[in-house]
Structure formats: structure tokens, C-alpha cells
């Protein structure tokens, strides 16, 4: 379910903001977010995400992308309380970083 919302949300982040007030040809054709993150950066994040186990992936997507609060996340992730959800997110993020740092 999370993935579905996320895919919907995603479609609109792929080609983000236009550099409206820039004049220089260097920055005009590239959106600030393209430059800020870059397709390659987003691809690396995605790849690392895919290496995680499902529960970790849900924790990352739920918190970082969909901005659920920990209380809501606790229900989604099946954790007893908000604090347990917080710990789950931190640990999932640590594992995501291991993949990113290794790759």
C-alpha cells in the first residue's frame, strides 16, 4: 500500500522545479532539484532502498517520504508504541546508510 501512494507521489518529483529566475545558460536548463540531487543520486538512494528488507523499507518510506508521525507509523509497522517505531526508523536508516556507503 505504501508503495502505491509513493509511486503516485513520485511521479511529480521526477521533474521538479524550474529555475525561473536564473539567467545563466548553465543553470537554466536544469532544475534546482535536478542539480541538487541529480538523477544519479536518486537512483543510488532507490537502489539502496531495494536492498533493504521489506519492514525496513516501509519504515524509511513511511517516515522520510510520507512523513507519518511515529504514532501512526507504530500502527503501520505493527510496533507497540511510537517510541518503538522511532527506533525502527533509526535502525532502518542505519542499514540504508550501510548499503549506500558500500555501493
Amino acid at each position, binding site marked *: 500500500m505504501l508503495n*502505491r501512494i509513493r509511486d503516485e507521489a513520485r511521479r511529480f518529483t521526477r521533474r521538479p522545479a524550474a529555475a525561473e529566475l536564473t539567467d*545563466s545558460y*548553465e543553470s537554466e*536548463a*536544469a532544475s534546482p*532539484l535536478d542539480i541538487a*540531487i541529480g538523477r*544519479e543520486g536518486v537512483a*543510488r538512494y532507490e537502489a539502496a532502498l531495494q536492498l533493504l528488507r521489506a519492514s525496513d523499507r516501509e519504515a524509511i518510506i513511511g517516515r522520510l517520504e510520507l512523513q507519518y508521525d511515529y504514532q501512526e507509523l507504530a500502527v503501520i509497522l505493527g510496533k507497540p508504541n511510537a517510541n518503538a517505531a522511532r527506533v525502527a526508523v533509526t535502525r532502518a536508516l542505519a542499514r540504508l546508510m550501510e548499503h549506500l556507503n558500500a555501493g
Partner: protein
Amino acid sequence: MLAERDYESLLESVADGAQVDWAALDAAAATSAERTRYRNLRLVARVAELHRTLVLDQDAESAAARIDEAAVADPVAWGHLRVMARMASGAFGRIYRAHDSQLNRDVALKLLRGDITLYRPVDRLLSEARTLAQVRHPNVVTVYGADVRDGRAGLWMELVEGQTLDAWLSAHGRMGAREAATIGMDLCGALAAVHAAGLVHGDVKPPNVMRENGGRIVLMDFGAGRAQDADGGGVAGTPMYLAPEVLAGGPPTTESDLYSLGVLLFHLLTRTFPFTGLDVDSLRDAHADADRRWLRDLRPDLPSELVQTIERALETDPARRFTSAGAMEQALQRGFVPLADARPSEATVHAPSRWPQLSFAVMATALVAAVVALVIWSRTTSNRGTVLSNIRTIAVPMVETSGPGIRTGFAAGLTEELISSLGQVHILTVKPGSSLGSINGKPDKEIVRALDVDALLKTTVSGSDGSDAAPPQLKVRARLLAAGTQAIVWSQDFDGPRGNSGALANAIAAAVTRAVQGVLTPAEATRLASSRQTSPQAEEAFLAGRSYIGRYGGGNADAALKSFQRALELDSQHAAAHAGAARAYVTLGANGAMPNAQARAAALAEAQQSLELDPNLADGHAVLAHIRFVYDWDWPRAEAEFIRSLDLNPSSSFALGYYANFLAALGRFDESLSVADTARQLDPQSSDAIRNYALYLYYKRDYARAERELLKSAPLEPNEVGLPLLRARFAETRGDFEGALADTREALRRSSGPVVPLRVAEIRREALAGRKAEALAGLTKLQHEADTRAIRVYARDLAYIQLALGNKTKAIELFEEAVNEMDPTVVWLGVDPRVDALRDEPRFHQILKTIGLPVGVGKAR
């Protein structure tokens, strides 16, 4: 190298979207591997940030809604209760306003989500009800009953209108001694009643305390409550508020409730906690190490009696705390300044005597952030008039939504509408929506400081979907929060039918002007009085478009265009939607997403139509001006439109930015710098505004000042790509081509994505630095990719590269081609120092003449 615990807290900051000083981390990294770790983490933080600022498309929202609906549909009735409206929803369930026809009264109904009734929450809910039903006290929410009906567990209780203490804190910041002490006494009374019934609450914390309109404090949500003699078993409640003996696994007691109350009061006064930790374990460690904050250190201004009372409640040893809630209330009472010498503000008057009459309202729980109705809060009522009349510069944080039926995109679009309505009032200066991009959601105090404004216009919008009898309505509560005192100095409610939010925004702008004792010019009054009704659906689409084109939505031109088109399908006479579509086309053209000729034609048609429908539309004039400038090279008409647009809305950062570009391209540098300076002051947090200012100095060939100005943007966004890119240009002017190349590569590294413009810049600078082989290899690769249509490379890109390689004739031919292609960037050729090598070429003069640019501007040193 960061300690393990610090690294964890860094991860948590990223997860919570908290500020991280990446530059400091980068600088502190001992090894390149460590630096890579931080950069990777920053990448993740950026992805999260992107999602935070993203306004979900309607499809996405409805996808979320579908999922939600699948779990639980809103019932029409539940048992003997008729369900009227959904007030809030959270992870465990939803809260409705409902009508009890047997007793003819409105109640709050809390229904558990259908899919989670299988485990703990049902028992929890029923025990919550049993617990509460035993207690009757003005400061404790009255529960009428609980049951499982139609297969769903629910609990119905008294409606309480107001907001939770934590929502209040987020809106107003920490409290003063008097307010906190008053709340403390009320809660002592509530706990005394709870304890007298042989119960403990177990989860005393700000989200579980409501402040009703009028000031009554109500303790609610006994989710973690239990009978005093029950077994412990597991930790319930919120860790920061839990007494150490409960954290250690012991059962909650009357003493632990008083400890939690102590933490609550500590939090009201400081917005922080005596003990903090990342999780229960680290919190236990903090208690064990007595690693804590002291109230006296954080608030030296508080009366000693109050500090002592709270610290006593926070004693680690339960035996050293107050023996009862009554004893604690007595202590708070003693430390309380007598009422005679300081009148409590409106908000703190608590009136238990009135309580039986108070029944209508909304109930909220820990899951609900804030519910409508704010209390006018003022510590400085005496000089409110003076404060108001001094307000001239205003920022508008994102409109808050309350209740169901208001989408994020709608709120963001409405915010842009408000900004543009206020911008039309000449005596007011309004910060652009983009200025709040990075600081939206921060405490009011920080926003005020960062933007240097006199006041914030805070707004809450709620709506109803309407029925057969009544059309859907929109209701907005607007408040002015003064910068100096952080007090709400003005508040007013507005409402109107959906589909006319422009009129609503205009009405608010006019009322704000009156509130700050300003006077509208007749023209402004006429414009603000105009209103146009459209359908709620067209309005929804239009506002979503606005939010996409504005910074709140990430400036997504594609999605913006779709939304505006949807609005126009529903209402072809929507002037602002035509202007919005024009702006989206211009942006798509500039981004290379659409061929120039096509972008121009579409944008022009939309802009003209918008102005036919509404000749006073500032945005319509601004976008038409931009089209005349970059595509038509029609300087006089462009300038007339810019001036008209800025006359209609002097605070439009969009018009200011384009106009500054226009003036600079024509070599009118001093005027350009003056306009750019206005834009810069309007948005002091914008590194773009600062960089543009530096860029115009560069075109003016005032390189030393340009570099100095550029440095000012560094602290705002230390890792931004634009910074090294512009620095590279400056290095080039000094003949430091290796330096320029290094900066360009730094930009490429920061971008972590080899976008075409950056690759072009790199190849150019390789050529300039005499690394011809590298440059040619890069060029070949670029052209190959362009040929296979993997990327789009423009004639002007190749022109800049050929010039750097020393092929002047080839470069001129390519620039000629760019002119034929109507490339909007050729307007810069008159002033761009990078083409100075061509300034003596007759064919280049011809190019400038074709565009209509003055020859020789660029040579003025």
C-alpha cells in the same frame, strides 16, 4: 569520527527533518570515507526534504484516501448516535461530531479503526471508558459511554472545543509563569479527582490536555490509565513524561502522575524536557547518570516558588515528591503572584463555574494536532494599537488546515493567493512564498527573525463539503502575530462559498490593511473588492496549480500546467489560471521540456487571454513581459508590461526577478542592481536572490564586488551548486582557468548528477585551461549522446564550447543558429563576459543587432 550515539542522533535528525549543519560535519570529517558517509546521508536528507516540500497530487491523495477508506468508511450512524462530521483522524481511529437523539445533545464519538479492533485497542478503549466514567470533575473530560456496536468499538463523550496544549505551544511558544501555574493548579485538581476514584492517569502530557475556548483546562485520553492496584507489565505512556520508576518497569502511581505533571509544566515553560534520550534505554541511562537540565538554568526569570514546586515534582525518589495532587496544588498556589497585581490574560481565565453550560465542540486526542478555534492571546494588550499601526512588513506562513476536506495543495495555493492579494496593497510589503521554503514550520520567533518582518499573518482554513441545501463553504481564521511580543494582536474570521477563494483572500488583505491602520487607495479598494465565482472543482485545480508553480509545491511546471488546464476545462474564463498556464509554458520552455517556438506560442496565447479577461492581473502582465523579453526581444513592450505588473503588485518576487534580468541584459546595470536589491531584501533567506545580485555585478564587470556579494550566499546554502558555478565564472575573469575548472567540477560533484549545462561548463573550461584533448573527448561524448537523443544539447551550448576552443567562426555560426531557434538565452549575449572575444567581430555585431541588443555594452569596463 562521530561517536556511535552521536551518529544515531544524526540519523534521527534526518528521519525527523531536523536541521543538520552539514558543512560543519563535512569539515570535521577525518577521512574521505567518513566524508562520503556524510554526503550519502545528506543525499537521503535531501530526498526526504524534497518529499516534505512536495505537495501531493490529487491522485496521490486520493490513493491515500482509498487506502484509508478501505480500512474504515465513515458511518452514518453508530448505535443511537447520528454521525455528523469527521473532526479528526489518527492512527487508532477517528473522532466524529455526533448527535445523541435520545438526550438531544452533540457529543464526540471516538471510533476505533475497523482493521485494528482485533488487538489491544478495543480493551484499551473500553478500559479507558470504565476508568473515566468513575470520575466527575470540571477539569476531566466527561465520558458518557463505550460499547461495541455494528462490529465497531466506540466511545462517546463530552465535546470540548479548543486545542491541545502541545498545539497551543507550537502556535505560541513557551508559556509564562502565570499561565503554566494556572494550568498546573487545574491539572492538580483533575488528578486529585482521578486519584480519589482509586485510579491513576498514567499518561499526563500536553497532547492529552485540552485548552477549551474560554480557558477551561480539560484532562483527557486515559489511554494508559489503569486502576492503581493493577499489575504493571510493559511501559505505557510517553517516555519523556514517565517517572524513572515507571521507566524501570514499575507500575504507574499517583506519585508518577505528579512526576509527569512536573515534566508537563517544565515543558510548558521551556518546550524541552528535564531528561531526554533517543529511546527508552538512553532515557533510562540519562536518569541513572542524573544527566538532566534544570528549570532554573533555562528560565532564570521564573519565581523561585514555582521552580521549587516543579523541581520537587521531578524528584527521582517518589517519596520526596508531593504526597498528593492537593499538596502540589497548594504549593503552586503559594508561588502564584496574587491576582490583584497582574491581571490574567483572557486566555488564562478558567471558569469552572461555567462548565456545565459548556457542551458544544470538538474533541481531540494525542493523535490530533490542532483543532480550530484559537484563543486571542495577548500579554501586551495595552499597546496593541501602537503595535498594529507599526506593522508594514508581513510574512504569510503556509495556511493551516483544520478538519477534513482541505487538501494540502489547496492550502498551499490559498497561501499564494493571500500573498498576492496582500502584495497589491502598497503600504504593505509581503514576503514571497519562496522565502518560507526552508523555514516553514519553524517556531514563529525564528521565522520572524529570519525574514525580518513586523508580523506574521497566520491563517487556518476549514471547509464543509456542503449539502443539498447549503453550498460548500470555506472558513478562514486570520491572525496577526506581532514580531516583538509574539502576541496575537488581531484576529478575524472570514467565510464564503467555495469557488471564490480569490475574494476571500482579497477580503483578508483589505481587513489586514484596516487592522494596521493603513488606507487603501481607491484603485486598490476597487481591485480588492472585485470577485469572481468559479466552481469549487475549478478552484481546487487552480489552487493546486498555484501551489505547484510557487515554491511551496517545489515549482513543478509540468504538474502546474496540468492543474491549470484542468481548471480551464472547468472554467475557460478563469483569468488567473490562464496566467498560470502561461507561466508554466515559459518554464517548460526554459527547462528544455518543450521546443522554444512552441513554448512561446502557447505562453503568449495564454498570457493574452488572461489579460483580456482581467486587465489588472499582475501575474498576467509579468509573464507577458517575460515573453516579450526572452522570445520576442521587444524591449519597449516588455518594459511597459514589467512596470505595469510591478505597479499592480510591488511585492511580486517573480516580476522583480524577471525585471532585474531584463535590465541587466540590456546593460542597465544600476537599475538592475536596484531591483535585484529589492528582491534580495524581500527574501533575505534566498541564496538565489543573493546570487543573482552577484551575477549582475559580474555582467557589470565589477568583479571584486561580485565576489564579495557572492560570499554572502555561502552560509545560507553551503553546498549549493550555484555557488561554485558562479565562482568559476569569476575565476575565469582573472585568467585562473584551472581554478574555474576545479570549481566547475566541484559543482558537478555536488550535483551528483552530470546534467548537460554542467558538462558543457566543464568542457568549456577544460578547453580554456588548455586541456584540449579532454575537452574534445568530452565534446565527442556529449554530441554522441545528443545524436542518440539521450540528452538535448543546444546550439548555444556548442557555441560556448567552440569559442573556448578558439573556433570563433564556428562559434558565431552556432550563435546565429541559436538566434534562429529563438533560444531565450541569447538575450545575454550583449553583456556576457564569456563572449568578449567576439566583441570585435562584425558578424557578432550583426547577431546583437538582430536581437536588438546595444553593441558595445559588454566592452565598457
